[in-house]
């Protein structure tokens, strides 16, 4: 299972980021989401959605073994095991492991599906 995104359907509204931050942190704050929208404006006028592909590279490179898989098969970072070494952040091929100065660990998508629920145009979905 993984999260998929169709760039052509994304309208850049960022509801997904808010829903994600509410799930991960109980906070209404899109700066604390586990996916990213990159606008390309004024030309060519498109949105690029970056999502976790569950490739597992993060777990391979984590020097302290802080990255596990949940019951959906999603890789997640155990907050109290993370040492903020940033190895996984640097190694992630999609650039979707995130950090903020006020959070003592890094985080990634856990396949909760909240983003899919709020996406109006249906640009996000979860499948095998």
């Amino acid at each position, binding site marked *: 299972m993984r999260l998929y995104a169709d760039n*052509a*359907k994304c*309208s*850049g*509204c*960022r*509801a997904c980021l*808010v*829903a994600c*931050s*509410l799930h991960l*942190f*109980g*906070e*209404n*704050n*899109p*700066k*604390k989401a586990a996916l990213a929208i*990159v*606008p390309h*404006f*004024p*030309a*060519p*006028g*498109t*949105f690029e959605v970056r999502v976790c592909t569950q490739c597992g590279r993060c777990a391979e490179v984590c020097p302290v073994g802080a990255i596990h898989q949940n019951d959906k098969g999603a890789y997640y970072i155990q907050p109290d095991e993370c040492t903020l070494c940033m190895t996984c952040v640097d190694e992630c091929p999609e650039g979707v492991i995130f950090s*903020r100065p006020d959070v003592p660990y890094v985080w990634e998508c856990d396949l909760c599906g909240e983003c899919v*629920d*709020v*996406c*109006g*145009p249906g640009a996000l979905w979860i499948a095998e």
Partner: protein
Amino acid sequence: MLYGYAGQILRVDLTRGVITKEPTPERVMRNFLGARGLGAYLLWTEVPHGADPLGPQNKLFISPGPLSGTLFPGAGKMDFTTKSPLTGGYAGASMGGMLTAEIKYAGYDSIILEGISPRPVYLYIDDDTVELRDATPYWGMGSFALEKRLKDELGEEFQIATIGPAGENLVKYACINHDYGRQAGRGGVGTVMGVKKVKAIAVRGSKGIPIADMDEFTRVAKAAYRACKEADGYEAWTRYGTMMVTSWCDENGALPTRNFRSGSFEQGANIYAPVFREKIVVTDKGCFGCPTPCGKYAHSKKHNIYVEGPEYETNGMLGSDLALGDIEDIARANQLCDELGLDTISTGGCIAWAMECYEKGILNQEQTGGLDLRFGNAQAVFALIERIAHREGWLGNLLAEGVKQAAAQVGQGSEKWAIHVKGMEQSAYDTHSATSMLLAYMTADVGAHHNRAWAITYDLAVGRDKVVPEKAAKVIELQHIRPLMDTLGCCRLQWVELGMSLDFYAPAMTALTGVTYSWQDLLHISERIWNLTRMYWVREVAGFGRVWDAPPPRFVEEPAVGGVTDGKLTSPEAAQQMLDYYYQQRGWDANGIPTSETLQRLGLAELVRVMP
């Protein structure tokens, strides 16, 4: 704890270069909610009576609302309030995009720009770090060129609002641009930014929004999202956005054509939504938190330009009203206005008036600076837009003042086809034969703008020429609901276009703020704000009253030509009768002034007694 709000107001004294932060006043937020309501309150209490809109005493209030930046559908709207340089009265302009959420995340419920900077500056906000930075190198730049440059310099996360050359040159209807295609368009809010020498605002915020009952708020918001996604008409609306309205207006004699002489356009089919979509749309573009994106980002190969739009109002005012029948030409005119920083609606209204003057021989080619200002001449329209923005030549400078001033100067009967109310050019609905919509334009609190009460579908439903009290009641109902959305900091189109239930709003506000609001409570506050903006006109404009609510003469003196409304008009008596119904139902006197009982009922008596 003030839940639902960022908690601080940012005050920027441009004259002295001093920046201060003050706590958001809880009592004011309870009575006026935020965004439009906060702006109206601050305009009343902070801008002294008689202030010159272009002088140091005027202020620009830039405010998100309580729902802005939250997980509620359409939480991407904000308000700019000021004393209008175009009308001399109240101006409140709404803008979508990403800025409102970012201001809230940075920690502010309003940014107050006051005084006048001695040199060009831009306001830099990175959470708690706020600076006035030199903007001399940017002065003269186009809106989107500057947005791109600031994003390149500061980072993609920064949200940027800019003015173009029109704002710098104090064109009376200069707009504020953001997000490559979102504008606070009406009433000259960009002009006020220009005279204050604030070229841009750049904001980045990383804070969350405190929510009183997170679980309940999230439940309500997600249910509202679901309702939008499952609504009938979702597909058509998101495919075409507001452009959908073009064919409906054309068929119903409401599409302004050749300066509102006709309500249907013989080339209309060339500028309908499907043509637009298939020919030039590249991407659907939503404002913050919008499940139903109406924004359509377009690329015209013919002109080699990118532009968000045209949306319907621009299509009407720069398209049919100027008799431009090529969607790519309208897109080009739209893009020029955006880049130069001009409100497309007022620009279209001014050019249409000038074209009619030219057609009637009142303006000759010497006065137009050599432009062949025939209706339908796209090249002349492009050239004139540039001249207005730069106040170039006699005509460019004249039209930069707005259609009311331009007609007053030229005279020779041209006042009769200057299509405005209170000095604001009418937006894109022909009102020869739509008495609710005509009343909506006559009584809108900024001038002839549609967003306060889009009543034209009601006209069609109950009989377009009927003059009955129910129509005044409908206009009042809409004037409370729609501006309420501008007060909450969210978009109205989820309700208007997708039928999202109004029952979501009060529970969302209650869960967000921890204060129990009923829908009636919210409407009562909206009515309070409406009466305060009315009192602002009374306070600031000598002799303000009924005569300021007069309809544009064209709709009551000259019948429409062609289309289904051919030969129709509204009699002057009918328009006055509609006003009578309206004033009575509002609790205003026969001159359109709120009575002391009305002000008392709305909790405004004390506030309006003190006139700063």
